[in-house]
């Protein structure tokens, strides 16, 4: 095997069974080698680029936590002036995307740079030890939204970043999951070949942060979709299209009970009330995106 | 080195006047420097701008405290602001007013009054007096020549607007020359 030609190479320091590592590998299958990757500070940046052991077979740049979209703006501008045609693709975590980097993302999307911004969404700050982000789901236990005697974990639902970026006029916005590899690869291909700023949010379960065995990463990712807590869809010019349909949507319990971050909803005794609230989120998603296959 | 202080109100073009005077002086072959009293003043507030003239490179960067010349764009400032403050003996104060000045003028300062508003209205159709006053200043001070001033005005304003401003400046220039 000619591993030198691989775009995301062995030897990186992700946990065994890492969802984001798998997502990175699949994303690069979609972008191909004619790509410049812009990374934010985060777990993926740290596990893939300790000097001099980079895992990236494509040109890759990291500057700061919150400025990937601005750095990408400059790169795209420079390539344009030089007459070069590489795809400029940001690959950033949810903390960088939902929280600290929103200013730069909003600016880059408003200016209409020809970039693809991909968020690998593992629903918390994993690099610093599992703190809550704007992408953390309702009731998830993190180190800064801990479940306790008077808390059931994170108090707010996930921020709707796809809608925010669609509202910027992005012509292609999609959600995907590393548990559906071909769908993810296809969406990345479509995004990099769609002019202007485009956004993909990739569900990337984190076995360490969410508390499950690394062999279950794909299953957890599928369960999120099968329960309706994560919806795979595309938005073309702001209109939702191509929703991944689910036949016989599973109760959210099946997704929650296999992750330590939701264990407080089941022990010492089952919290029916809170589980019902999460079921309501899934039901709302199913209604809003017409997820159910009849 | 000679120094000029311009008193005006925000929106009256005092800074532009200073710049035009400096450009015209430079056109005439001497060193000049123009700068505003840097502020956050809005339209109507009293403002100042400064010009220096010298035969050698100007290094001094402080504001002008002891001017050889003063231009007052709006006579309502006289009284509100000490427009004659620090003026040198033999200095010239050029004041835009339609009526007689009723303030005390420091000894040794020559005051020239001109109804620049009327001249501006006549030539430009608007009461923007800065280019008229520059014409008058050119005549009163001898720091800038009329052709250099015309060149500066034409570099600043487009076509017809330049013509009007040149006409206003020339009229004022000749008016002061005739009176002198």
């Amino acid at each position, binding site marked *: 095997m000619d591993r030198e030609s691989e775009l995301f190479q062995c030897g990186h320091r992700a946990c065994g069974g890492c969802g984001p590592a798998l997502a990175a590998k699949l994303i690069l299958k979609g972008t191909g080698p*004619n*790509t*410049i990757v*812009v990374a934010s500070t985060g777990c993926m940046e*740290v596990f893939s*680029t*300790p*000097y*001099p052991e*980079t895992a*990236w*077979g*494509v*040109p*890759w*740049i*990291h*500057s*700061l936590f*919150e*400025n990937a979209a*601005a*750095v*990408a*703006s*400059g*790169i*795209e*501008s*420079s390539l*344009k*002036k*030089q007459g*070069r045609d*590489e795809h400029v693709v940001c690959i950033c975590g949810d903390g960088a995307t939902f929280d600290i980097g929103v*200013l*730069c993302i*909003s*600016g*880059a999307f*408003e*200016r209409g740079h020809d970039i693809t911004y991909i968020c690998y969404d593992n629903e918390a700050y994993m690099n610093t030890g599992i703190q809550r982000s704007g992408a953390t789901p309702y009731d998830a236990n993190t180190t800064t939204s801990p479940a306790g005697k008077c808390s059931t974990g994170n108090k707010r639902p996930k921020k709707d970043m796809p809608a925010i970026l669609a509202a910027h006029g992005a012509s292609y916005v999609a959600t995907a999951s590393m548990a559906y590899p071909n769908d993810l690869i296809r969406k990345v291909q479509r995004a990099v070949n769609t002019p202007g700023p485009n956004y993909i949010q990739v569900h990337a379960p984190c076995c360490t942060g969410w508390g499950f065995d690394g062999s279950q990463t794909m299953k957890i990712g599928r369960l999120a979709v099968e329960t309706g807590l994560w919806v795979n869809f595309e938005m073309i010019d702001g209109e939702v299209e191509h929703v991944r349909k689910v036949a016989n949507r599973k109760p959210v319990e099946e997704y929650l009970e296999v992750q330590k971050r939701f264990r407080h909803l089941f022990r010492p005794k089952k919290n029916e009330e809170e589980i019902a609230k999460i079921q309501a989120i899934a039901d709302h998603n199913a209604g809003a995106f017409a997820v159910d296959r009849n | 080195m000679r120094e000029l202080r311009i008193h005006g109100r925000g929106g009256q073009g005092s800074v532009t006047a*200073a*710049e035009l005077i*400096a*450009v015209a002086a*430079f056109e005439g072959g001497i*060193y*000049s*420097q*123009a*700068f*505003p009293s*840097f502020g956050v003043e809005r339209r109507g507030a009293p403002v100042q701008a400064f010009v220096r003239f010298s035969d050698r490179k*100007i*290094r*001094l*960067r*402080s504001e002008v*405290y002891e001017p050889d010349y003063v231009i007052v764009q709006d006579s309502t400032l006289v009284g509100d602001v000490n427009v004659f403050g620090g003026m040198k003996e033999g200095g010239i104060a050029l004041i835009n007013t339609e009526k007689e000045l009723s303030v005390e003028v420091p000894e040794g300062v020559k005051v020239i009054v001109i109804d620049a508003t009327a001249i501006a209205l006549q030539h430009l159709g608007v009461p923007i007096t800065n280019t008229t006053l520059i014409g008058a200043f050119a005549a009163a001070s001898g720091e800038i020549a009329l052709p250099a001033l015309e060149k500066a005005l034409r570099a600043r304003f487009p076509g017809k607007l330049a013509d009007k401003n040149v006409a206003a400046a020339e009229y004022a220039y000749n008016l002061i020359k005739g009176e002198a």
Partner: protein
Amino acid sequence: MMEILEGSHAVAEAVKRCRPEVIAAYPITPQTHIVEALASMVADCELDADYICVESEFSALSACLGASAAGSRVYSATTSQGLALMFEVCFNVAGMRQPVVMTIANRAMGAPLNIWNDQQDSISLRDAGWMQFYAEDNQEANDLHYIAYKVAEDHDVLLPAMVCFDGFILTHTYEPVDIPTLEEVDAFLPPYKPVNILDAKNPMSLGMYATPDYYMEFRYEVEEAMKRARKVFADVGAEFGETFGRDYSGLVEGYRLEDAEIALVAMGSICGTVKDAIDEMREEGKKVGLLKIRSFRPFPSEEIKAALAGVSKVAVLDKNISLGQKGAVALEVKDALYGTGTEVLDYIVALGGRDIRKRDIRAVADLAEKGIGDQFYGLRTEVL
């Protein structure tokens, strides 16, 4: 050709002649006239650059970093709070060895909010790994841009540079400036030849993280590049002098220092007023001179020591203060003169746009003569 124009526009003309491919900037007083002028030049096809209207200074410098990493010569300008917002990126640009050139229209830092001039903004970023050059007048502000690009892009240096000139006092002042032609600048400043760029044909990872096994060595290399920059600046400044007749080979410059007993030390536009004050004092028989610091980073300690070898008292005019200590320039001059026995007195002056006149300079020289220093000069004690 000698022409008279606003300082900001003189700088914009210089930047145009340096042919940046990408400009990213955000408006802030008193810098704005520079980037407005550049935007007009791009709009009129006088300058073939991509002008990115970013949403913040933070993004301005981030975009410059990206464009520089992709192989373009880049430009930005800012001041004060805008520079502070860039703080994090400044360290990043330097550590990634991108030769970004940025104009700083020096302005005070809030609070209290103040749009006027002092040099607290750039001084506060002295540790970031950027070279910092300070201009006395708009001629120097113009010339330092050509020199800054050439020094920054030298492969012995590869560090970003700030060209600092005093907000309002220079940015908004019309005065004559001799601006070289585009052809002359082309001959002096060759196109940017980057190393380690983002290129799909030759992939490279930039901005990796360094563990404790490597981090110190990378910092050491930045420091070594700074040291080499001293000579590169002197060489480039001398070459500029041979080409254009204005010599910038000195990281410092003396004025009537030869037999001076008291030396004033200053940076930026205040130097002009100091020179006029010195001429007056000289006529009265006072042996006073000026040492102007042109390059604050790299700091020319050896040159300062040599230039001030004969004086008995040094009075530093600091348009900044390292709160809890003294003025930054005085501290560093003291370090340069350590062991020589020369007395260094510090005067915090002209903060937040407080005007400084010849008589103030003379008063400072008098205080220095009496050995009274290390104080704010010109405080309005009646409001305290």
